[in-house]
């Protein structure tokens, strides 16, 4: 079957399989999770085998992918935009080492922050690392550009960053696939100095990376993904990535003749940009994300012919839409119906029967007698504990921050210094912070709300399941201060008492609140029914 209805994320996965990857490495994160899930479920990944289990975090994922590349095989690594902050050390330095087998890093950005703490634009990271960036506009192009990304990576011996926004990752369209090519043979890199970033080697490698930039620009000049659509008039548009779709939507529905330059490969094709810009007096820059290239083209002194997110022609934040594009192009938009006031917001909430709920009930009761009621929070479903009726969580910053922020707050004198972190977040970035607290004998109470899974992204395996007691003990937490509770209504009084005891303890204590996620439980029951019973 060559035609399939695929999410943008799935188009990447299918293309990576067809490009002959030997492994995918990833930590789940909306909107990137479906890439790895597709490969995990694909029969095509069984023979020849494609390695696809979840990594503990984005950094371990990236480094493993780099190791596979060192061995000469192709690897894919996927994460959400903020995940690249975690993997940044590995990513930045891998452009200095360069790669051997093709390495493509997919970063899914989340403009409008549908499921994220910020809307950072990953193209900046590509520029920072001096490595090629690809930004497809639609699902078919996503398939093609992913295949191309592996060729580009092997041709330039650099990691290639493929950036997609939520709207492309989570939107389906018909995708036609091409033939599958074989995986690379095991062929470890023989270039020794290249991989050892001691200062002398690093300086040489960095110089070579700088010298390579001209080649990358030339590749962008001739790239089939950077193209001009001719038009008439002195107004023009430069559209980047998915910005092209919104521009084309307006061009086709208003039957415009406006000239358009589409950019999907970076670094910018200098000559193509210059030639295009010289022809027009008024150029709208359409970028999904930060005005990265608008700023560059506008320059420090602010060339006024460029309009976009910086001068308010388009909003500075949030994802683009056809209506915003129409307005930016000065077009009349139809008057639309308004939402009646009777419609109230319906924010996400913890599921009925969720263990986090019973934990929060017990915690709120245990905290009652203290003047400070801050609970440091983390990233996961339990962040919803910040909302009524619990209103128990006071912070949500980055993966693992709950433990270390509680530690710092304890150092400053806050008592009790308590935090809630999920099981998967704990193994992702919490263990190192716990070690800091142990080494400093910080009076913190760390609650690991363990539901056996990475729940918010849809129930992926969690790296430490079944081993939290041992992990905490191994990191040096005193055994008598590692407490286990089962967050159920019937245990409320007992759990409150255990929490209270540990909140009063002047040292590191860990409470493992253990109950399986109701969603994964439901899924498992369904699965059991499917496999053990005959169809009705």
């Amino acid at each position: 079957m060559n035609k399939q209805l695929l999410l943008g994320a799935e188009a990447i996965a299918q293309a990576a399989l067809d490009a002959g990857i030997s492994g995918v490495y990833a930590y789940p994160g909306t909107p990137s999770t479906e890439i790895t899930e597709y490969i995990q479920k694909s029969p095509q990944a069984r023979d020849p085998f494609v390695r696809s289990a979840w990594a503990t975090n984005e950094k371990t994922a990236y480094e493993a992918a780099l190791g596979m590349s060192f061995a000469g095989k192709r690897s894919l690594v996927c994460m959400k935009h903020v995940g690249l902050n975690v993997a940044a050390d590995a990513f930045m330095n891998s452009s200095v080492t360069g790669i051997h087998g093709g390495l493509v890093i997919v970063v899914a950005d989340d403009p409008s922050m549908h499921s994220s703490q910020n809307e950072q634009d990953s193209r900046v990271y590509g520029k920072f690392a001096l490595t090629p960036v690809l930004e497809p506009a639609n699902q078919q192009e996503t398939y093609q550009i992913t295949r191309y990304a592996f060729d580009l990576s092997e041709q330039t011996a650099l990691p290639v960053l493929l950036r997609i926004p939520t709207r492309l990752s989570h939107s389906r369209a018909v995708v036609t696939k091409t033939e599958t090519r074989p995986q690379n043979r095991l062929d470890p890199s023989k270039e020794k100095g290249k991989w050892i970033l001691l200062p002398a080697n690093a300086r040489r490698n960095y110089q070579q990376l700088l010298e390579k930039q001209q080649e990358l620009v030339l590749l962008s000049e001739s790239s089939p993904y950077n193209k001009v659509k001719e038009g008439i008039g002195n107004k023009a548009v430069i559209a980047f990535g998915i910005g092209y779709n919104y521009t084309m939507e307006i061009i086709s529905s208003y039957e415009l003749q406006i000239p358009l330059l589409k950019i999907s490969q970076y670094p910018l094709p200098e000559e193509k940009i210059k030639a295009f810009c010289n022809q027009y007096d008024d150029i709208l820059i359409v970028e999904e994300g930060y005005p990265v290239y608008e700023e560059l083209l506008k320059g420090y002194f602010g060339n006024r012919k460029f309009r976009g997110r910086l001068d308010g022609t388009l909003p500075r934040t949030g994802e683009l839409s056809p209506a915003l594009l129409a307005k930016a192009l000065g077009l009349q938009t139809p008057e639309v119906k308004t939402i009646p006031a009777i419609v109230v917001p319906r924010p996400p909430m913890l599921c009925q029967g969720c263990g986090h709920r019973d934990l929060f009930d017990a915690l709120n009761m245990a905290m009652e007698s203290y003047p400070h009621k801050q609970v440091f929070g983390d990233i996961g479903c339990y962040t919803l504990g910040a909302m009524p009726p619990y209103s128990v969580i006071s912070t949500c910053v980055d993966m693992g921050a709950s433990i270390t922020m509680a530690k710092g707050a304890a150092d400053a004198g806050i008592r009790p210094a308590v935090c809630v972190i999920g099981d998967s977040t704990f193994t992702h970035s919490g263990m190192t912070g716990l070690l800091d607290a142990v080494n400093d004998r910080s009076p913190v109470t760390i609650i690991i709300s363990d539901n056996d899974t990475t729940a918010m992204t849809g129930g992926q395996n969690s790296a430490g399941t079944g081993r939290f007691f041992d992990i905490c003990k191994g990191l040096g937490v005193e055994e008598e201060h590692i407490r286990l509770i089962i967050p159920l209504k019937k245990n409320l009084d007992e759990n409150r008492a255990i929490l209270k005891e540990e909140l009063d303890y002047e040292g590191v204590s860990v409470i493992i609140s253990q109950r399986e996620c109701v969603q994964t439980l439901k899924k498992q029951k369904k699965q059991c029914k499917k496999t053990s019973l005959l169809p009705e």
Partner: protein
Amino acid sequence: MQKNIIIAGVGGQGILTIASIIDLAAMDLGLHVKQAEVHGMSQRGGAVESHLRISTEEIYSDLIPLGKADLILSIEPMESLRYLPFLSPGGVIVTSTESYENIRNYPDKTELLNHIRESASCLLIDAGAIATEAGNVKTYNVAMLGAAAPYTGMEATELEKAIATYFADKGEKIIATNLNAFRLGKDYAQK
């Protein structure tokens, strides 16, 4: 031909089943399809919607432009109104009347239904009753699809074929129950 459909509901209600069936039918007809979904945090009991676009021509934007939706197909009454700015002047709302009240300040239902009636030409469907009549409450979504079938731009027979494909690995009985719900939904709407 181009049809823009917003499918609305609450996370966990299974709006993607409806979208997938329409997708299958459209693909079978060789049409262009785009379907934007909501994944992630909102799926936890929050408001969710899917933008579904089918066309004989190439489709560019994954999102339906404001004022261009031909149909809002909602499986929850309040949710049908949340996407009104997308509805075209001649657009139709097909919504279930059964409310999903997981928030404290859920509005008065009679007032809500009046608002829907005033907002656009609409069909209010008691999908729960239809699904029960069809023999399985889980066919709720398919009953709603049946009611909305005339506004999808596709023949009912095409959608029925897609239902059979969608439920193929669940066995004949499930297919038959869903086809029944689809037809009952269609009949209910035509009355």
